[in-house]
């Protein structure tokens, strides 16, 4: 092995020889992810216009503190108050869950390792930083992605409940554009959550002899097909969750009117 390691590589000085626009994709990822982080932080800080009957913004669901405009469980926890910022927006009690799920997601890891950490920025483009991969703190914690998946499943259940409540208008049953927006959002979020690599492993991928675990094999095959579209769900659900909040916010502010279909 030492002989193999000691020999010399091709004497080519260029950091890369690529002629295509390899920088375009990482740049697009930086722009889109940064825009989402800025918008979601701003929306969470607002602590207003996140509920207009019967719609609740996904950024504030489940609504669990006393000051919530729409208590998800009927009763709420005491508000968290801090000296300078005052009452903490309930969104901050929630967003860390889905945030951690996306932060540790195998697909998003690829996206931000390439785009933000430049490790590497593109394939066969030189990466010159020191590197320890995911072997040390804090990146070692990425390996606990499945715990954040357990959390994400809880949030999908809550958002599904919110989407069911979105049929319950003050004057009775109905369907508005907002109802459809919320159902599209929860469908895409469920697609993202259940196409997760950890989900695929926990539900069947851990099995070595599939012929002795028929149900897990069928589940694994279904999740494998979903998993092939994981990047697509990752992006679509990111857009949908932001746009759902924006829609409800604009309706709540009176900027646009929610059309009743039924």
């Amino acid at each position, binding site marked *: *092995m030492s002989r193999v390691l000691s020999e010399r590589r091709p004497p080519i000085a260029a950091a890369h020889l690529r002629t295509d626009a390899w920088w375009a994709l990482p740049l697009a990822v930086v722009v889109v992810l940064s825009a989402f982080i800025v918008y979601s932080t701003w929306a969470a800080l607002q602590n207003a216009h996140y509920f207009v009957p019967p719609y609740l913004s996904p950024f504030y669901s489940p609504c669990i503190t006393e000051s919530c405009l729409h208590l998800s469980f009927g009763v709420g926890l005491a508000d968290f108050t801090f000296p300078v910022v005052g009452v903490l927006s309930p969104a901050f009690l929630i967003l860390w869950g889905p945030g951690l799920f996306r932060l540790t997601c195998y697909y998003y890891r*690829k996206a931000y390792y390439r785009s933000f950490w430049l490790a*590497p920025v593109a394939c066969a483009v030189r990466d010159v930083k020191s590197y320890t991969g995911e072997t040390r703190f804090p*990146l070692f914690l990425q*390996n606990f*992605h*499945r715990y954040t998946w357990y959390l994400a499943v809880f949030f999908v259940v809550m958002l599904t409940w919110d989407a069911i409540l979105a049929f319950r208008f003050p004057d009775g049953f109905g369907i508005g554009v907002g109802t459809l927006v919320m159902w599209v959002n929860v469908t895409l979020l469920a697609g993202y959550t259940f196409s997760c690599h950890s989900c695929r492993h926990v539900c069947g991928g851990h099995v070595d*002899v599939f*012929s002795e675990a028929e149900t897990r094999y069928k589940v694994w095959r279904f999740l494998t097909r979903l998993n092939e579209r994981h990047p697509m769900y990752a992006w679509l659900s990111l857009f949908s969750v932001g746009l759902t909040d924006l829609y409800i916010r604009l309706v709540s502010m009176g900027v646009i009117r929610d059309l009743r279909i039924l």
Partner: protein
Amino acid sequence: MPTYTMRVFRGDARRGDFREYHVETAEGMVVLDVIHRIQATQAHDLACRWNCKAGKCGSCSAEINGKPRLMCMTRMDTLAEGAPITVAPIRTFPLIRDLVTDVSYNYEKAKTVPPLRLKPPDPDGRYRMMQEDIDRIQEFHKCIECFLCQDVCHVIRDHDLKRQFAGPRFFIKIAALDMHPLDTRNRTEFAAREAGIGLCNITTCCTEVCPEGIHITDNGIIPMKERRADDYDPIVWLLRKFRGQRPEPA
């Protein structure tokens, strides 16, 4: 017939540079054809390794316009005619000459992977497995050992962590053995401690360059990382208690 300007690396590990060749091409030609034409007409001493010319032997790996690819599977009509086309040796391994590198690092790594350890045969002395048991690992057996995945992996290519890190080709080998229905070893400890799977940050370049279309990251590396995470998951530990213990460590 279109004429291409080819910039081909010439030299050895001590010194070398790109030289330009103008080559007339015919319909259906691939980069390897063009390299052979340069050999035949302009540079008889140009060294290049090849064998099957059908994308199955994995010999003609090179970097074409900076992208790791098989020369025999890269059609000239997919490359822009106006600009020069660069053909370089795969840059991760020691250079022998021109486009030929020494990939024996990979063979040394292959020797370290614990082999299959079969469970006892059925009472009639035979081994049986069902198709659904091996569908998953047959994907990994498509590997032609072109080592393009090893070449593009930044852990080996840029950080030169060859001692600590086996590389994507061997992660799918480890995965194929670990998922084998007749195997009794647990290779998660080996994958973490000896093969250095924690060094992989799953940026999927290996999958992007694989000429066989093997989903190296999604189906090999990530499942092995998840199997390693099983070792620390109390829920999995409880389930294992109910279902019986995992096989002995490697």
